[in-house]
């Protein structure tokens, strides 16, 4: 891939990740100035779900990068976008957490301790965020060098655990009868199955090189 192409695609990726946030902030601005309905009847709920869904979508897209590269070697340049996407996922997770701390717990430690100890959906959500934290902190090239590729890779398997915890948090948070978390659950399920399947395929290819290559 040419340098220019990569730069162009980075620009597109940043725009795609920041676009929804810009939209949300614009609606937020409108809702406190001229149009109280700009964020819907329940703005707190709107912001919560917007940032939560944003996190899960970005996490899943980040997890899709490697399988897609393996399946379609032409797209292997996507690897350069994995860190960027992962960091945006963490960024949205932070906004989601901030929404909770500010608009639900009202910055009250007592309320937060109460929630974390008593409400499993909040415990699951916090667990997911805590798992993303070391991943964001070790996202620098320096960390990769310091940890060594193998250890770094092993640590970053946590992304899967965080995504699972996030989806569980989503299911536990919605009221019974609501099936909106289904889509993201299916996508994550496919991605979880994809890694071992692709790895097995790679192993068998290595053992028995295809006749074309021989």
């Amino acid at each position, binding site marked *: 891939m040419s340098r220019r192409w990569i730069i162009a695609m980075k620009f597109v990726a940043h725009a795609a990740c920041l676009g929804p946030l810009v939209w949300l902030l614009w609606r937020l601005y409108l809702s406190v100035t001229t149009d109280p309905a700009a964020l819907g*009847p329940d703005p707190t709920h709107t912001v919560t779900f917007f940032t939560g869904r944003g996190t899960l979508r970005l996490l899943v897209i980040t997890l899709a990068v490697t399988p897609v590269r393996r399946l379609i070697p032409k797209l292997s340049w996507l690897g350069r976008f994995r860190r960027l996407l992962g960091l945006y996922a963490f960024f949205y997770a932070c906004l989601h957490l901030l929404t909770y701390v500010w608009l639900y717990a009202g910055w009250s430690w007592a309320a937060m301790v109460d929630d974390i100890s008593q*409400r499993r959906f909040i415990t699951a959500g916090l667990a997911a965020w805590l798992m993303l934290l070391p991943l964001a902190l070790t996202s620098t090239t320096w960390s990769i060098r310091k940890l060594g590729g193998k250890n770094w890779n092993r640590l970053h398997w946590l992304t899967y655990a965080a995504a699972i915890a996030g989806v569980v948090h989503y299911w536990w948070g919605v009221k019974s*009868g*609501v*099936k909106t978390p289904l889509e993201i659950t299916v996508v994550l399920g496919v991605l979880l199955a994809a890694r071992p399947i692709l790895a097995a395929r790679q192993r068998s290819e290595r053992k028995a090189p295809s006749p074309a290559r021989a």
Partner: protein
Amino acid sequence: MLIQTERRIPSSEITPRETYMNRRAFMAGAAAAGIAAVAGDRMTRLAEPEGVEAAEKLTLVKSPLSLTGETPTSFQDITHYNNFYEFGVDKGDPARNAGTLKTRPWTVQVEGLVKQKKTFDIDALLKLKPMEERVYRFRCVEAWSMVIPWAGYSLSEFINACEPLPSAKFVQFLSLADGKQERLPFEAGISWPYSEGLRMDEAMHPLTLLTFGLYGETLPNQDGAPVRLIVPWKYGFKSAKSIVKVKFVKSQPSTTWNDMAPSEYGFYSNVNPNVDHPRWSQKTERRIGVPIFRQRQPTLMFNGYGDQVAKLYAGMDLKKNF
């Protein structure tokens, strides 16, 4: 002095009812002209659905039981942010789908422990007693709340007309369950019809409202037309919508949410900031239609109606009987 700080929707942004109705009439006309035949189901749903009564103005008298000093939630939000699972589980589903509900003809059957079975026609019920405006707080178990100007009269007036026997200790309310008019979504996990119930003294309390309208007009379909219950000191799900049957019974009737998840939804379900839902806190609530940073407010015991209703539960452990 009441200082109005809430920003209201500028009147210029509210479509006048006549324009709105004209647009509907136009769409109905367009549908009739054959567009519906091409576009199919979708278009007919946009057009005025058959059997929907246009809202009628109600003549109301003031009530001392009405709240003062709280800004009512907008008509738009009250009619577009609903839990009415018969029409779908999403908050916007009832407004989208309840057009298919036919509110005429409509009857309410009364049975069980009564002198004799009776069937009330909706038009007779509308005239049974003078209609009052009652502005009440409305607190959903999901921790959001509204202030709503309902129209109706005390349920006790209706119960007296039903002539229950002294052996009747509870009243059960059943909502319409008709797959032809309602979606009755399978994923809701509810075994229809929706059922709710009250203890007799709760049902006879003057605050308990047999409700026919809001904002001075007959109820929009998505708010439980043509007749519903409003029990302002209980979580919203206790207030059954689109009622077709009232049963007087000896023992506590089975009620929908209590059956589905007894640990989450008690039979009483009085608004109580000291008893949390297992999955979220009930200490505070989010007022609907209020700017984001002012949405959160404390939840009041019995939703602020403690002075009137606390005596109904004297001596009861409200943590056990939640």
